[in-house]
């Protein structure tokens, strides 16, 4: 069952080019199982604790609570941005979704089918539907394969003939803006960072996935190249009807590309909702601090006081109750006693927040970045 050919590679519409042997375009209607209202992904209670060997005084194993009960849904065709500081569990969440590491607990439902469950979707089937692009464009390519071979590898081992896989690889390279006659025979070290990241995107698309997880995929690129890759991602999403999970620490990039945003802190979701609602009026004090930490982009309105002091605490022994309370400017005794649950923010149902004392919707972020200087 593992190496069956991926489902139906037929052109999407009459306008699409004729079906060639290497065509990777997918009939999304045909592969859509649950209908448009069924979320693409429903994640609930996702948990991963890494055992780091030691034992605490009570004899309990020391664990890093990297992801500690994360729930969210991703709708079809949307881009979900995940933001948070290093160590908040955003990359671990991505890896758990792909089953690159096994979750300790929790369920993932992909378009109505539970992953890795009896009568559900197998992991290999999941990976054919969901692919990932990593941050380090060089480390994620095999240095001994030409980029044509790298992109053709997945299709080849899942059932296409060598010629078909090669043709698909070339049409994908063309699609991401790398002319095959010029680039297909090159090795990764012969490409620039931006070009390598395009190859990684092509390779992820080679399995004709429906969901793409982009884990800090543009973070290592220079600004001018980052803009090119972001444009490419937007174009591909529209052309192929993809759903993105976009993980980044860059709040401006997430604002630009996402439809909804998930804010994580120490392995938990603290706030999620539509991107405009979160950026205009964050309800969680952490989100608000994170947003006001962005440089002002205006030398006349520099940031005068840091919104937060100190670093995020160690995820080995997170604070009791609300995990943010040790850095929260408005922590009260109740915050240390019970952890707040994710609940709809007052006056809005799509916007959820995990705080006992959420900010009101009129509290805006003090200094949103100015628009580009030329606008």
């Amino acid at each position, binding site marked *: 069952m593992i190496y069956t050919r991926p489902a139906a590679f037929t052109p999407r519409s009459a306008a699409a080019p004729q079906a060639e042997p290497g065509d990777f375009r997918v009939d999304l209607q045909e592969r859509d199982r649950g209908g448009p209202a069924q979320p693409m992904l429903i994640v609930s209670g996702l948990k991963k604790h890494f055992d780091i060997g030691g034992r605490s005084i009570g004899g309990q194993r020391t664990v890093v609570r990297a992801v500690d009960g994360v729930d969210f849904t991703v709708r079809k065709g949307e881009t979900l941005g995940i933001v948070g*500081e*290093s160590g908040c569990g955003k990359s671990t969440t991505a890896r758990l979704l792909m089953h690159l590491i096994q979750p300790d607990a929790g369920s993932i439902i992909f378009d109505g089918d539970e992953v890795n469950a009896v009568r559900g979707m197998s992991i290999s089937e999941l990976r054919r539907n969901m692919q990932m692009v990593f941050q380090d464009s060089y480390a994620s390519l095999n240095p001994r394969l030409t980029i044509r071979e790298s992109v053709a590898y997945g299709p080849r081992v899942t059932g296409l003939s060598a010629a078909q896989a090669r043709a698909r690889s070339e049409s994908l390279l063309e699609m991401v803006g790398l002319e095959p006659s010029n680039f297909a025979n090159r090795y990764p070290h012969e490409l*620039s*960072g*931006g*070009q390598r990241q395009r190859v990684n995107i092509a390779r992820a698309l080679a399995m004709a996935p429906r969901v793409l997880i982009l884990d800090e995929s543009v973070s290592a690129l*220079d*600004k*001018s*190249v*980052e*803009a*090119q890759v*972001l*444009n490419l991602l*937007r174009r591909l999403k529209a052309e192929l009807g993809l759903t993105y999970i976009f993980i980044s*620490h*860059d*709040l*401006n*990039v997430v*604002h*630009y590309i996402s439809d909804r945003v998930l804010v994580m802190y120490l392995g938990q979701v603290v706030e999620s909702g539509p991107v405009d609602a979160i*950026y205009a009026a964050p309800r969680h004090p952490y989100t608000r*601090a*994170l947003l006001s*930490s*962005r*440089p*002002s*982009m*205006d*030398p*006349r309105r*520099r*940031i*005068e*006081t*840091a*919104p*937060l*002091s*100190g*670093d*995020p605490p160690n995820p080995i022994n997170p604070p009791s109750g609300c995990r943010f309370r040790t850095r929260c400017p408005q922590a009260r005794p109740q915050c240390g006693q019970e952890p707040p649950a994710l609940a709809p923010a007052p006056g809005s149902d799509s916007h959820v927040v995990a705080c006992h004392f959420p900010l009101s919707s009129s509290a805006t972020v003090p200094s*949103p*970045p*100015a*628009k*580009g*200087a*030329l*606008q």
Partner: protein
Amino acid sequence: MTNAPHPCATPLVTVENLAVRFVSSDMDVPVVNGVSFSLRQGEVLCLLGESGSGKSVTMRALMRLLPPTARLGGRIEVDGIDVINLPAKQLSRIRGPLISMIFQEPLTALDPVYTIGQQISEAVRQHEGVGRDDAMRRALELLELVQVPSAKRRLAAYPHELSGGLRQRAMIALALSCRPKLLLADEPTTALDATVQVQVLLLLRELQRELGMATIFVTHDLGVACEVADHVAVMYAGRFVETGSITDIMDAPAHPYTQGLLNSTVSESLRNQDLASIPGAPPDLTALPPGCAFAPRCARHTPACDVGVPPLRGEAGHQSRCIFPPDAAIPVAEASALSSAA
């Protein structure tokens, strides 16, 4: 002669026509091609550029922190000392007491087998010739200066025991330990999280103001430059393509490359619209174009651009290396934004 009565009138740093090439048996790569600037006591210069533009190499040349394959040309004078021709044995005279540096990655820049206190006090003892206890006391003062909480306890901590933000603060303390006149900061906040980055930026700004050091800041992030810089030099292919005050650069960028950088910076006004990215990639340094190095990616490229490297032109405070006058450049930048959005 450099100890003039008005230290503010004479520049602390003068760099003229600095050139750096990396030469090996099979390669000769010109990385910095004629950089000139001067910096007075108490000023903050930001070198802004993408990877490979030569910004870090320029800065390391000021301290002669380059590998033996580097060949330096031109003139660097810091506080009256000719840095390029300084004998290697005398380098310790300038490294520390005159110029010191903060690196991007504190974990690799600090020594993992010595405590923070040992590392700072060693530098103090070497350069100021004080005893062990005095040096340790000074290390404690320095940690307090950089606002490390419970500084006494952190003196005995090893670098791996500290969080990223504290480690960067410890490195700043180390850099300040010999009271440098010139502080070099090479992307000091790039590896930090957003909430910590702003803390470290504010700290550096405050220290720079308090201690009156001249500071050169290398960054690729326009937002960081806006927070700290007085002056900005935008680098491309080893040359300054635009220099000016930070407000000049943000309000009226003159060079097409600077305009492209500003346009491709993601901001909320651009949602659901393509970003105006700069096409192509930075040039191969071993085969630079004969004229303007940015010409192959520039929307306003004309044959005149390929004849010789354009000089920096404009008024003294705000100069750009483009043959077109700056005011004519802005409509074209908008046109290119429109065409790429179409």
